[in-house]
């Protein structure tokens, strides 16, 4: 596929290799192996739960590849936003603990 998010290589006995592209879900970071010849569906409704489109979809808000379960949710919360919130919550918790002398 064009612009894959990664690459997986299985090396068996005798050096036999199987290779495939991967995409990393922009919303949850799950890594999905791409079956050769398949492309993520542009419409999340088409991809959710449909074995023919098991690669997930393309989020048209953040314009990134996403996995099937995230496509089914129908919302766009990029993983970057989630960890920014996680980090700011952690920072606030530590600052509160410092102020309170804990």
């Amino acid at each position, binding site marked *: 596929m064009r*612009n894959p998010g990664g690459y997986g290589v299985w090396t068996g006995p005798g050096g036999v290799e199987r290779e495939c592209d991967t995409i990393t879900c922009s919303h949850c970071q799950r890594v999905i192996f791409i079956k050769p010849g398949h492309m993520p569906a542009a419409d999340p409704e088409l991809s959710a739960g449909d074995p023919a489109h098991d690669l997930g979809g393309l989020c048209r808000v953040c314009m990134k590849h996403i996995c099937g379960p995230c496509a089914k949710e129908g919302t766009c919360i990029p993983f970057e936003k989630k*960890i920014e919130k996680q980090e700011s919550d952690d920072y606030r918790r530590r600052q509160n603990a410092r102020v309170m002398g804990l």
Partner: protein
Amino acid sequence: MARFSIEGQIADPSAGLAVLGLLQDATSQRRGKVYDVLIGAEGTPADNPYLWSVDRGTTALGTSTPVTPAPLDEADPAGLLDAGDAFTVNPTIGAKLLHIPLNQRATFRWVSAPGSELVLAATANLSILARAVTSPAVASTATMLFEEQ
């Protein structure tokens, strides 16, 4: 940004214990980005099934043998993130990021494209773990390359 390698073994992964983990302790304030994962078995070759998993650990770091991340560029300073192998107590397992069915005779490598790394937030007590969900009692090994940011 400095890049590091961590490598770990476990003698018996059959209980689902993590082979290798990249750990964010209470003081680390840098993100970790895992961009390369290599896994395999180092025991006597045999046809056994593995189901490897790269998971997120949440809320606790578990118990492991400390591993010192090795800088890929020797001019880089020591890293701030921690690592451990041969877990005896797993961290709390959260999201499952990567599932790899594998024969014991085979090895697997996953390399991310830039921007698609597995990100470890700069938040205390988080981790990214490589573990065998299903496996024989055979010594197994894992390597991760990551970038601190």
